[in-house]
């Protein structure tokens, strides 16, 4: 633990320069490119490929309405005659060709993947943002205030850590289903997913931030801030927070991969995104029904997309952890 602050310090420097994305001053970008982080990025082909795939998939999801051949959830654009078209083979009735084939209702699989990617990424990013905010705040409070606040927060964290997060998410989801009236269930499903996955994942953030805060709060700059009369929240958010952020960034990246897989798993189990707003997991669940009749493309393409997304975000997280090298464990 003793060398944590130094590792954190050094590694925040290049990140600090990267963060203001709006700054157009070329000198800043130049220095960021020459920084330690960018250097290790340029040296790692795996990280570059992973980053490329991730950016490509995120862009595809953002631009889905522009790229997709048609809106798969607008019934006017569907033709039932196109159902079960094989990939790259012209349909026997209509003669239309679909890159990745179509499902039972004639929806283009490529389009459903693009829209599914949107839902998966939205849920993944929002859940991690929620978990991160909650975990960082509770971690700061526990570390800075100590006493009974710390005891309560960390005890809850310990108990929750005993259970696998997928189980926690399932329970929260089940309870939410009981509380929300049936007519709102489908509309609320995405929000419930975000909250369930977020609540099942805050512990990691809280533990790391608390550990780092315990070290930081005894440093001179915190004592100085206290001496000039800054308030507790100001010290926590403006002084300590920037210095504990870099391990948070690593955990957030790894959490994103886990959140995407958790969302896919919940949707696959039939308790996640509804068929009206299918995520990649829902698509795989639907595709599974057609696997036995040999219509492999309805399942395999969404599955491959999910795998590519999860694997590349995972590899990015691994690289970031090695590059920043905060002592996470």
């Amino acid at each position, binding site marked *: 633990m003793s060398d944590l602050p130094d590792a954190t310090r050094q590694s925040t420097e290049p990140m600090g320069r990267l963060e203001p994305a709006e700054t157009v001053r070329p000198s800043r970008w130049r220095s960021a490119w020459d920084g330690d982080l960018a250097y290790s990025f340029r040296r790692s082909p795996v990280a570059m490929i992973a980053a490329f795939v991730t950016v490509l998939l995120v862009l595809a999801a953002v631009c889905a309405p522009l790229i997709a051949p048609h809106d798969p959830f607008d019934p006017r654009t569907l033709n039932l005659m196109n159902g079960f078209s094989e990939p790259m083979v012209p349909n026997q009735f209509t003669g239309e060709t679909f890159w990745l084939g179509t499902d039972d209702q004639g929806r283009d699989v490529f389009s459903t993947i693009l829209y599914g990617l949107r839902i998966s990424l939205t849920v993944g990013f929002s859940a991690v943002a929620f978990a991160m905010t909650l975990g960082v705040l509770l971690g700061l409070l526990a570390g800075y205030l100590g006493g009974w606040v710390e005891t309560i927060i960390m005890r809850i964290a310990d108990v929750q850590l005993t*259970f696998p997060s997928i189980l926690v998410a399932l329970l929260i989801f089940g309870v939410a*289903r009981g509380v929300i009236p049936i007519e709102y269930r489908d509309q609320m499903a995405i929000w419930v997913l975000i909250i369930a996955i977020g609540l099942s994942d805050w512990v990691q953030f809280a533990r790391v931030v608390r550990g780092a805060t315990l070290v930081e709060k005894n440093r001179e700059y915190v004592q100085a801030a206290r001496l000039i009369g800054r308030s507790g929240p100001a010290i926590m958010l403006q002084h300590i927070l920037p210095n504990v952020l870099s391990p948070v960034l690593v955990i957030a990246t790894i959490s994103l991969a886990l959140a995407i897989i958790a969302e896919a798993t919940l949707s*696959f189990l039939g308790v996640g995104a509804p068929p009206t707003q299918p995520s990649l997991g829902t698509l795989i669940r639907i595709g599974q029904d057609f696997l036995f009749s040999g219509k492999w493309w309805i399942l395999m393409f969404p599955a491959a997309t999910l795998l590519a997304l999860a694997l590349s975000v995972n590899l990015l997280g691994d690289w970031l952890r090695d590059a920043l090298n905060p002592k996470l464990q």
Partner: protein
Amino acid sequence: MLAYILRRVFQSIIVLLVVGLVAFSMFRFVGDPIEQLLGQERTQADVERLREALGLNDAFVIQYLNFLGRALQGDFGISYRQSRPVADIIAERLPATLELALISGMLAVGLGIALGVFTAIRRDGVAANIIMSTSLIGVSLPTFLIGILLIYLFGVQLRWLPTFGRGDVVDLGWWTTGLLTESGLKSLILPSITLGLYQMTLIMRLVRSEMLEVLRMDYIRFARARGLRARAVNFRHALKNTMVPVITVTGLQLGSIIAFAIITETVFQWPGVGLLFINAVQFVDIPVMAAYLMLISVMFVLINLVVDLLYVWVDPRLRIDGRAA
């Protein structure tokens, strides 16, 4: 030593009480049991009588204590959906899950340790490198995808193995087992690989890195210098000293095997408690959810307790610390 055990047991009881409180709150605040039990045709008097009979008018603490008392006797109420006692439903589903978890656990621990030792000893070998890179993909694949891919390959394409259900089971009175029939054993293969694969890769990677660490130690070099055979050095001296972290992770992973069984059971329509729980979540069957939660947490807490006690047994140094604390 005794103080250490007592403290751990005490902590476990606290955890169970908290989980019990969560389970009880689900009963109390999610949905209205009166609504579930009485139909549309009801009078205010009926409602009042049922409230009194169910004890819903008692104070919160009294209700909680009653709930705990009944749970201790194995009474978790009646399933909203199946209208049968929850305890009976779970008792009839539990053998399927436990058999699956047991086989997967044995697979994960046995193969994981063996492959871990192998990849550590033949660190630069071709086979070891192939195993290591394959394991990276194995960790990134979600469990349900592994299951589906196995079904597609061995069930749909090759038609070697059954893809759903438990096959024929033998009823032993209080336990149904699929281990005694051919179709039962065949049905176990794909689900147990699906369930155990992730845990196996984790254990393998852990054993490998711990072994590499230990093999660098002086006492290993000394053991080699004494002219001991490679097998004795690798297994009796090196492997034994990697066991403390391996036991921790293995213990915790056994817990998650039971939780991840939910996913595997859904993929293979395996009639265990995991599938029961998923159906309960879908249909908001609160008594089943609460009972499953309690059951799983008792298992987790027991596993954690056993792991902690195993440490003390494996690593004699902890016995002294335990006495001092």
